[in-house]
């Protein structure tokens, strides 16, 4: 007959293996819509120098779907998400734009992040965290979707994918068409 201690140890080990299996096989989190007082309003001013040495003004991006992505080089979901932003940028050279903003990170780390993972879109310098507070960002990654007319459509908390954003935009356009019809 097995001792009770051995039975308990086997049960605990089994539970741990099951937990590891679930964690190992689950799909990564995708962005979920989060509340924000900005949704439905004109996007706050996003203007200033970029880490690339130029300047950016979000008013110049009118007519395009803009993703304002807050990220950090130390944030694992941000690293996993980045190729998806690259993909979104590749799919939408004319009607879409990604704008990145470092959050809780240094400019040097942000530069190194882009050097390593790519991406040729504007990366805003936000040393005083003015943009982070204007958008009330809590933790990276967080992404705001801005419509071509400059209205904030939604806030995505967590990792997003290019397909997710495309599907979302398609749904918004369909809804708008139905509303107009």
């Amino acid at each position, binding site marked *: 007959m097995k001792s009770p201690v051995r039975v308990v140890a086997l049960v605990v080990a089994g539970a741990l293996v099951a937990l590891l299996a679930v964690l190992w096989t689950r799909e990564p989190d995708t962005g979920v819509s989060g509340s924000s*007082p900005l949704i439905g309003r004109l996007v706050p001013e996003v203007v200033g120098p970029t880490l690339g040495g130029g300047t950016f003004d979000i008013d110049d991006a009118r007519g395009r779907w803009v993703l304002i992505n807050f990220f*950090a080089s130390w944030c694992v979901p941000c690293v996993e998400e980045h190729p998806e932003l690259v993909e979104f940028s590749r799919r939408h050279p004319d009607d879409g734009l990604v704008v990145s903003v470092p*959050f*809780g*990170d240094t400019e040097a780390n942000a530069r190194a992040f882009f050097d390593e993972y790519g991406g040729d879109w504007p990366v805003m310098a936000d040393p*005083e*965290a*003015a943009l*982070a*507070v*204007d958008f*009330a*960002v*809590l*933790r*990276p990654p967080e992404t705001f979707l801005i419509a071509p007319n400059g209205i904030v459509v939604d806030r995505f908390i967590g990792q997003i994918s290019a397909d997710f954003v495309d599907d979302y935009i398609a749904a918004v356009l369909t809804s708008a068409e139905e509303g107009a019809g």
Partner: protein
Amino acid sequence: MKLGLGRRIGWLVVVAATAVSIAVVVAAEDPPATLDERAYRLKETTLCPECDGQNVLESNAPVSAAIRSQIDELVDEGRSDQEIRQFLTGQYGRGVDASPPSTGFASLVWVLPVVVVAVGLVWLAWSFSRWRAGRRVGTTDEDRDLVARLRHGS
């Protein structure tokens, strides 16, 4: 036995002086704080929206660092404390404001200590006056009769 006119006036002066002192302390505004002091006080009374019960001064969360940085900026720009609090609660919700409001039920935090001190002083003054009055018991006719009987041995 009643207090004499001079003593009554004395007590009135003491009570009036105390009341005026409290009123002056309550009504007087704090001396103008430096920008650093104001920023420190704002950070001390702004809660981290990501943490449990920590203010942004204590918290190491990136959002707290961002809020600290913005408080410094807004104070330097000349915004008032009230404007900064309104801005932050507009962005992160009312839960980040840890300063007791000056209106409504929570305003009792400010009012109650003053009321307690004022009531306490009035009670003390009243108690002292009764105590002093109690020590000065006058002689009654009965007392005089008793003394007279004892002196005459009857």
